[in-house]
């Protein structure tokens, strides 16, 4: 897939009443802090002595999903997510829905932080839709375009025990075919913005070719107007750039604010010829960046791509932040983007991007 042939998956997300000529697409990576009452509702649903069943829990999940979607709309984001309210964790959620997976119990990540690392004990299979209900619900509660984040097959494979396949690579490709099936179902339901999350690539950057091959499986047969993104975070980008440019996606969503744009130069040579979703707020500090600080971060993006190729986003999912901090960061981020757009219209911004 060359960028030229797919140049316009972006304008469909521009609101009809957008006030400026320039348009910087604002969005989020996906996860958002869960309301405290949702965690209480889950505890109630697990407590057999309480009159609170699965149906009640479903209602609570719907409420949380609606609430966070509304919060994203209120912050002014152009493409919203429901904050992944129905997902407990980025691998477990999918493993519960994919045939061939089994769970044996929690394993340590660090200290007393554990994760129900699943095992692939049999051939993996697509038995039921993973995210179509989530997508349908979210599109039902907002008029804004909804973005769908999906944990990528490389990460699903790396963060599981592999009992069945000869290699982790083989498992990743099988899972990529299932992601492709899921995207078919999502596209049929109306999804036009899909982001593949591959955080595991950061720990093993030399495997970028495997991630690239996975994406070939994923993108196969996906209609041209469907925007595909790849999210990668907390790694040494020099080990995956420029190779990632060959992957069949439109947009790369990268964490850069946390490292104070130390790695920005990596992307200047050769020319970044796809869309850049630039992390402009740090998700690992509760300090809320001011609008001016975020504007300065957005301008950093113009050192790599022109405004037509820049998406504005937080570094990563914001679920570990206090909810009010997460909201304030989103609101300031959108405000900053709108002010930069106006400045661009007025010719007040020097766009010195590397490919100029």
């Amino acid at each position, binding site marked *: 897939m060359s960028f030229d042939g797919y140049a316009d998956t972006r304008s469909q997300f521009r609101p009809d009443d957008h006030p400026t000529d320039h348009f910087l697409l604002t969005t989020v990576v996906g996860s958002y802090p869960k309301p405290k009452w949702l965690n209480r509702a889950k505890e109630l649903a697990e407590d057999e002595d309480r009159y609170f069943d699965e149906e009640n829990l479903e209602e609570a999940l719907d409420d949380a999903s609606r609430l966070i979607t509304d919060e994203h709309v209120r912050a002014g984001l152009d493409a919203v997510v429901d904050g992944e309210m129905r997902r407990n964790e980025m691998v477990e959620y999918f493993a519960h829905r994919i045939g061939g997976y089994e769970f*044996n*119990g*929690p*394993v*340590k*990540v*660090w*200290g*007393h*932080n*554990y994760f129900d*690392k699943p*095992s692939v*004990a049999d051939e993996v299979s697509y038995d039921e839709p993973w995210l179509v209900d989530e997508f349908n619900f979210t599109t039902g509660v907002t008029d804004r375009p909804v973005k769908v984040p999906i944990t990528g097959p490389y990460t699903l494979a*790396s*963060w599981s*025990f*592999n*009992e069945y396949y000869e290699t982790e690579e083989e498992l990743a490709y099988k899972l990529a075919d299932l992601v492709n099936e899921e995207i078919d179902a999502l596209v049929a339901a109306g999804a036009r913005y899909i982001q593949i999350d591959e955080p*595991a690539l950061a*720990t*093993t950057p030399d495997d970028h070719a495997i991630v690239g091959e996975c994406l070939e499986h994923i993108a196969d047969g996906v209609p041209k107007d469907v925007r595909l993104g790849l999210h990668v975070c907390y790694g040494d980008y020099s080990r995956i750039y420029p190779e990632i440019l060959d992957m069949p996606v439109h947009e790369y969503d990268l964490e850069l604010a946390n490292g104070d744009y130390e790695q920005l130069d990596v992307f200047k040579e050769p020319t970044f010829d796809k869309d850049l979703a630039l992390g402009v707020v740090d998700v690992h500090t509760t300090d809320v960046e001011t609008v001016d600080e975020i504007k300065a971060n957005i301008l950093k993006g113009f050192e790599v791509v022109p405004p037509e190729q820049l998406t504005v986003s937080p570094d990563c999912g914001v679920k570990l932040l206090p909810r009010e901090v997460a909201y304030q960061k989103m609101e300031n981020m959108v405000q900053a983007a709108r002010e930069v757009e106006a400045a661009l219209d007025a010719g007040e911004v020097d766009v010195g991007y590397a490919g100029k």
Partner: protein
Amino acid sequence: MTEVLATTPGLYPLPDWAKDELSDLKGHQKDDLISGEESSEITDAYDRVRDELVDWQIEAGLDRIVEGQGRWDDMIAHPLSVHENVETRGIVRYYDNNNFYREPVVRGDLTPDGDVAAELSACDATQAVLPGPYSLSELATDEHYGDEGAFLDAVAEFLSAEVAGFPPVETLFLLEPSLVTDAPEDGVDEHASEAIDTVASATDAEVVVHTYWGSIPEKPYAHLMDADIDAIGFDFVSDHEGSIYNIQEYGTKEGIALGVVDGQNTLVETPSSIAERVEWVHEQLPVQSFDTVYVSSNTELFYLPTNKAEAKLSALAAGSKEVSL
């Protein structure tokens, strides 16, 4: 006559009740992890953990019983993490795994503190487990000794004093994955071997230097052979060819530890496949005879859910009994 003994490199997963109980007692943040000065409730929970981990091994029928290292929140960096002259800082990646430990920064003299000896004294372990001096120095940051060589010596002296305080045990496993993953350069390789000697000479127990996540490069392996130890441990799960190559080219000690059970995959090996792997290694080495063969997992076991870790212990014990050399 070769003695075949089933054992493990230690560092077991906490029983699930203890994962809950200890995270409630201690918390989830980095400042909440083990410091060496635990409350009586936490000490009591770890006493019960220790008893249970020892029971797992006795029930499985292992020939060497470890303390289980349930308290080692920072994995093999633990002996430094609890030291009074060590500051623990940010969370850093534990080798090439999706696991993290607190970076131990050495800020003062590494005086002996007896932390691991106290754990061993609290149970009937027949095998002690410690990080090897090279790996421990590689996992830590030095802000006190000022020189890589001096720091390695200091870590070796510290571990040596710890070992001198141990109750009597049959075997001491020194875990040295860094000899593989961050192999010592010229000069340092000889020094790493001398540091291991320093620790090994502090005990009458059989000393096994266990390596994993690949095989040691040739030169550091040749230097390791100069150390006065009783056995070297090899990872036959991740690199059987490199392991066999080292042994064929440079020989090995009279004892050998064979990591033939995968400590990082839930697929449980059958006893017969374990026995076959041990016999296969023996067949590749026609000129070598062993007085002791330790049959083990390649890595620590904390990567596994508890049901699979326990199943692997049983398989190890049963498999080692099936071995015919």
